[in-house]
């Protein structure tokens, strides 16, 4: 059983610092998602844990072992690559047992392992095929099988589902969740898709330009983002942002939004009025009759999805996305008012950090 501990981890490619002083602890048996936009250093970080990339600074521990300078194959980790990296000249069975064959394990043992893994991943009828004869989802499963057969302490996934179409992605997501539940092994999962991170992980680490922006349970990140970056990255459709001014008084936080003002629950006391940014999720904005509410606007687009409806409203501060009652019939061009769920409004300081609630 193994946890993963990163301390003061840094990675430089020449003068470019891709990962900066990163501390992270992944509990044994947990499913940790590294989430961030493309180029933020997710793969680099995962590859350092795998041992495929040298460490410029800091330490990596897996279980109770310091593996910072240990060879990849001896770290007790297995990795599933985004492009699967299946060997085209080998059959599915040979691909799965490639590590055993390298180690010179007897043929019978290999065959038995291939069958066992294939059973777990519904690959049994495909064992004799070559990768070129498989669909994307099947290749993905073979790649997972190749990791499974090594019985690693830690599984590493680098965007394993991003080459699949949406439907298959949904299915594979469930299979991965089931696999994690069955095996109970530590998994570190890199993705830029916040839906994957939210649904699979028990801990999400949001990376921004090589630094941890916030780490925590999915719903904690959703409900209490530590900064504007996390707030904007997590949640789909994305949070609305509105420029405002704020000042503290005895009743709480006084926010001025254009001509309107509202009082929000108290935050860290501000010494003087200053510019802030408000963040509010579509489900926390409500449509009102024109003239009512905090903000006035005109309906630009109505997206009726059946179970819910998103109404995009043009306001003087840009477009605001509102999740509304699907029974409501609205036409583009209609004038509406908007009100906010005051407890759910996030306030970000000029540097992007959240003003913490008191």
């Amino acid at each position, binding site marked *: 059983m193994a946890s993963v501990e990163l301390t003061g981890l840094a990675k430089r490619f020449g003068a470019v610092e891709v990962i900066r002083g990163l501390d992270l602890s992944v509990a044994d048996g947990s499913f940790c998602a590294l989430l961030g936009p493309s180029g933020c250093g997710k793969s680099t970080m995962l590859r350092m844990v795998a*041992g*495929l990339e040298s460490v410029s600074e800091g330490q990596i521990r897996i279980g109770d072992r310091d593996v910072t300078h240990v060879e990849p*194959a001896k770290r007790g980790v297995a990795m599933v*690559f985004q*492009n699967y*990296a299946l060997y085209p000249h080998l059959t599915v069975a040979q691909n799965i047992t490639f590590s055993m064959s*390298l180690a010179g394990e007897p043929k019978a043992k290999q065959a038995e392992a291939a069958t066992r893994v294939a059973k777990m991943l519904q690959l049994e009828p495909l064992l004799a095929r070559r990768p070129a004869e498989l669909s994307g989802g099947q290749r993905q499963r073979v790649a997972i099988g*190749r990791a499974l057969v*090594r019985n690693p302490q830690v599984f590493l996934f680098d965007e394993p589902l991003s080459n699949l179409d949406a439907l298959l992605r949904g299915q594979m997501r469930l299979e991965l969740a089931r696999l994690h539940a069955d095996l109970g092994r530590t998994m570190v999962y890199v993705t830029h898709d916040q839906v994957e991170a939210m649904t699979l992980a028990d801990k999400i680490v949001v990376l921004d330009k090589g630094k941890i922006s916030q780490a925590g349970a999915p719903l904690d990140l959703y409900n209490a983002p530590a900064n504007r970056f996390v707030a904007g990255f997590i949640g789909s459709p994305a949070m609305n942002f509105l420029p405002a001014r704020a000042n503290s008084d005895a009743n709480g936080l006084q926010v001025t939004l254009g001509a309107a003002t509202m009082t929000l629950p108290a935050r860290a006391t501000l010494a003087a009025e200053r510019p802030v940014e408000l963040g509010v999720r579509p489900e926390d904005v409500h449509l009102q009759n024109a003239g009512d509410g905090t903000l006035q606007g005109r309906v630009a687009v109505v997206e009726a999805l059946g179970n819910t409806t998103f109404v995009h409203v043009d306001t003087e501060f840009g477009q605001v996305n509102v999740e509304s009652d699907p029974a409501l019939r609205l036409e583009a061009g209609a004038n509406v008012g908007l009100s906010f769920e005051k407890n759910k409004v996030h306030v970000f300081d000029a540097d992007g950090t959240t003003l913490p609630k008191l």
Partner: protein
Amino acid sequence: MNNTHATPARRFDLGATLLTLLTIIAAVIWFFPVYWGIVTSLRYDDQTVKDFALIPMEPTLKNYIFDIQNSNLPIWYLNSTIVSVGVTFLVVFMGACTGFAISQLNFPGRKALWWMILASFMVPVSALIVNHFIIIADIKLLNTHLGIILPMLIAPVTVIVYKQFFDGLPKEFREAAVMDGSTEFQLFFRVFLPMNWGVTTALAIITFIGAWNSFLWPFLAAQDEMMMTVTVGITAVQDTFGVAYGRVLAGAVLAGLPVATAYLLFQRRVTQAITLSAGIKG
């Protein structure tokens, strides 16, 4: 099918037709001597000098039988085979190893080695042939198989083709194998080489054809008739066949046979190999 485009008048493309015609004419001009050689090798010489015939009226294998029985052709064949197979195996194997090392391994002097190989590619081997002769003579390897083989192992193109190929493979193949505990040797023999079997066979075939057909160096290195290759033997031994057109041409046909067969059998691979190395030369 779209009817408007299927009318013969519209389909007739003057340029393409002319090009096809020209190609056919060129092919006929190129092939005629070969054909005529084959025809002559199948006729009696007195017929050949008497009249001109496109089709042998009384074909005979007499010339072939004479050649095989009265010259060292079987030994030359053996020599050619030893030299060509040896050269092919060594060139391809060393090319693959070197290409792998330059593409995948990190060692001091890697860049320098690569530049040296690229530079040696610019020097035509025939320009060095005198040096080769002196060196091989000095180390007393003239008239030996090894002496013929050694200078023919200079094949930078093979290294370059392999290096480019290995460079082009996604790095995940290497990384996945490394994570599975692969050593560099296993990586080479179990992943990189088998993954590129097509390249290897293609290179082996053109190397074999080149080695079999090579003339200048074997001609210099093998003065002893028993060490000659086929190409050298049939041309260098003046009175092997006398002034007998049929026998000379039968010898030529026999010399060219293995290469022609190899080419016919592996036509696609050969063109692939030529494109591979042409891409590098271009």
